[in-house]
């Protein structure tokens, strides 16, 4: 089955006896930056993408901004606010993260943000500086600037390789197995060190603002290979994402618009945000990035009580906004175009007095593969960078995930290279390869009744119903039982009808549904385990944030083939969180006072 039994490495451009020093999986910003760093540190580097490098990953569709402290900005030549400081930025990120952040990761983030920003500017990134803490740019711009640097260095890339499994020896990562999507052949690649940079697992939900590739396949592979996962209950939802029409589905433009103007309406046309919250909360929601959390909660409550739109969302309207105010805003988005998307039709529709259906969408994962400040996972030779890693943003991300990919990508590339200089190329264990090959190919020949695409829908419905913005113990228990039963009874019966090997969509779905189910189980069990509400994790049966009991991170690991959960205390360097207990609104008000907004 392996395309190259005579060439065990199998990947184009690599001969049989060679293995790469550093293998980077994922070609969004974190993967691109990791590959650049590994190359510059002297490692032979291979960059793999499950789509095409430069045309896949979440970075290209990001808003996007880079955040750094004002003083750091001044030091790299931007007209920054020198009274701002790294310490102040550090403090704010932890307040925003509800104290759960790994403070060592936050220190690395604020420390390296200016140098990574400067480098992007030197590489020609177009940007606008807001004079405070944000550099505004575009995902496509970030992506192309980084990809140019990868091309300039002649880094080997391999497109359309869907990595499904990590190969291990003892407790070290030594390579990967993947499906070459276009040929339908399995390939193995040996590496001294592996960097995972594959983004989140938003595609476990039906409604998301993330692109197709974000399936958590490598979270699941890392977990199966013995790496720990962290804080998997933490999922940020972006409110006001287009639910309908289909051509704009998943777009976050109305979320950007509502920062300027407009209302969210329930089905009777009544604006609900003002009624849902205390006026001070409403003001915070409409003027700060806390709006993701606050709007998502409010909209979910409206839908749950039966006052939502027919497709399960709410409505965004600009009917009460005078037209000249709308026209003024058009100066920011000339012709109502943003990135490569044209919103003029949508704006015309809104200006005529109509409302567009919107809903919270799975948007960003704070949890992920556990890493330390050197981007090392708990498996030797395995590193993780960007959204696929967990811990930096604690229970709520407000600061930029673009800064995260740049900072952590570079750290992971450096750490992986350092490790590769000490490590030896390992022979691959034949038994392990056989087991993985047999597992991956079984659905092709199995006579079964279960189709992966149906199972995928079923699994996503479980996530939509029980792992959405508001969770509760009963729903989570139900989700866990269903997911466990699917893993035991249905995944092993998936069968593929399509005979053709080239771009076999059923096969891709079969691979994806298995990892999605594993990751959702990890998330559901973590969410049940955390018997409190904190940040984006909201439990209706445990509505308070409890610093007395829950200044702890939830860890998921595989022990003797079974999923096992535990906690570890939060990682503190300088900021000792108060031992307090507070409700949701009180928490927001507390935080905003602390932040001085």
């Amino acid at each position, binding site marked *: 089955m392996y395309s190259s039994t005579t060439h065990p490495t199998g990947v184009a451009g690599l001969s049989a006896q060679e293995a790469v020093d550093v293998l980077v999986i994922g070609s969004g910003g974190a993967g691109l930056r990791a590959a650049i760093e590994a190359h510059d540190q002297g490692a032979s580097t291979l960059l793999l*993408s*499950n*789509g*095409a490098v430069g*045309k*896949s990953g979440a970075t*290209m*569709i990001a808003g996007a901004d880079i955040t750094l402290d004002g003083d750091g900005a001044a030091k790299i030549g931007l007209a920054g606010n020198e009274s701002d400081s790294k310490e102040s930025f550090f403090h704010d990120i932890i307040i925003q993260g509800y104290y759960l952040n790994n403070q060592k990761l936050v220190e690395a983030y604020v420390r390296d943000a200016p140098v990574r920003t400067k480098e992007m500017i030197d590489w020609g990134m177009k940007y606008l500086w807001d004079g405070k803490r944000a550099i505004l740019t575009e*995902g*496509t711009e970030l992506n192309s600037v980084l990809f140019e640097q990868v091309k300039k260095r002649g880094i080997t890339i391999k497109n359309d390789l*869907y990595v499904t499994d990590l190969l291990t020896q003892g407790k070290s990562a030594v390579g990967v197995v993947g499906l070459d*999507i*276009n040929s339908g052949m399995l390939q193995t690649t040996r590496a001294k060190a592996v960097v995972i940079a594959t983004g989140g697992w938003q595609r476990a939900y039906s409604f998301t603002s993330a*692109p*197709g*590739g974000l399936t958590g396949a490598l979270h699941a592979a890392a977990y199966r290979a013995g790496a720990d996962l962290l804080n998997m209950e933490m999922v940020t939802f972006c409110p006001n994402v287009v639910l*309908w*029409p*289909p*051509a704009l*589905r*998943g*777009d976050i433009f109305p979320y950007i618009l509502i920062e300027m103007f407009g209302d969210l309406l329930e089905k009777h046309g009544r604006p609900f945000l003002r009624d849902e919250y205390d006026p001070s909360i409403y003001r915070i929601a409409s003027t700060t990035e806390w709006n993701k959390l606050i709007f998502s909660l409010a909209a979910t409550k409206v839908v749950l009580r039966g006052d939502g739109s027919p497709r399960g969302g709410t409505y965004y309207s600009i009917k009460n906004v005078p037209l000249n105010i709308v026209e003024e805003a058009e100066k920011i988005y000339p012709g109502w175009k943003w*990135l*490569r*998307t044209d919103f003029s039709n949508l704006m015309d529709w809104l200006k005529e007095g109509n409302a567009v259906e919107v809903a919270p969408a799975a948007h960003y994962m704070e949890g992920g593969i556990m890493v330390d400040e050197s981007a090392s996972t708990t498996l030797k030779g395995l590193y993780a960078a960007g959204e696929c890693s967990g811990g930096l943003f604690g229970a709520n991300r407000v600061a930029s995930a673009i800064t995260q990919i740049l900072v952590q990508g570079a750290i992971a590339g450096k750490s992986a290279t350092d490790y590769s200089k000490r490590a030896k190329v390992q022979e691959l264990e034949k038994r392990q390869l056989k087991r993985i090959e047999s597992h991956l190919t079984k659905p092709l020949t199995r006579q079964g009744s279960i*189709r992966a*695409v149906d199972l995928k829908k079923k699994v996503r419905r479980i996530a939509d119903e029980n792992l959405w913005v508001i969770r509760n113990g009963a729903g989570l228990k139900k989700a866990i039982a269903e997911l466990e039963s699917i893993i035991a009874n249905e995944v092993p019966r998936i069968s*593929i*009808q*399509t*005979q*053709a*090997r*080239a*771009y*076999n*969509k*059923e096969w*891709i779905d079969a691979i*994806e549904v298995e990892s999605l189910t594993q990751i959702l189980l990890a998330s559901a069990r973590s969410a049940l385990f955390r018997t409190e509400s904190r940040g984006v994790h909201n439990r209706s049966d445990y509505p308070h944030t409890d610093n007395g009991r829950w200044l702890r991170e939830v860890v998921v690991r595989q022990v003797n083939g079974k999923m096992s959960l535990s906690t570890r205390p939060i990682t503190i360097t300088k900021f000792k969180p108060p031992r307090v207990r507070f409700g949701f609104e009180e928490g927001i008000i507390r935080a905003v006072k602390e932040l001085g907004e």
Partner: protein
Amino acid sequence: MKMETRKMKVTVARFNPAMDSSPHYQTYEVPLEPRMTVMDVLDYIYENLDPSIAYYSHASCHRRVCARCNVTVNGKAGLSCHTEVTGDITIDPLPRLKVIRDLVVEGL
């Protein structure tokens, strides 16, 4: 009173270079939903009528940025994630590119 759903004819170029000497067309009947996209149509065929159909979607951005879902619709190039459908259509791969299978091509 239930409205009769309008059906449309969707003709798709099928080609497996490993097996076929030349491409052929296959026609499906798909219920037409308001403002559905070519991607929605292909998803419908894949999920309900013919799982063997190949079109690029697993890692596409669904947001008009990556352009890897580009196909030819009624003779005109368009992104399947964003091209809306109002009646019968013929879907071909982009011209002049090597076909991997059906609508999936090399070089996008």
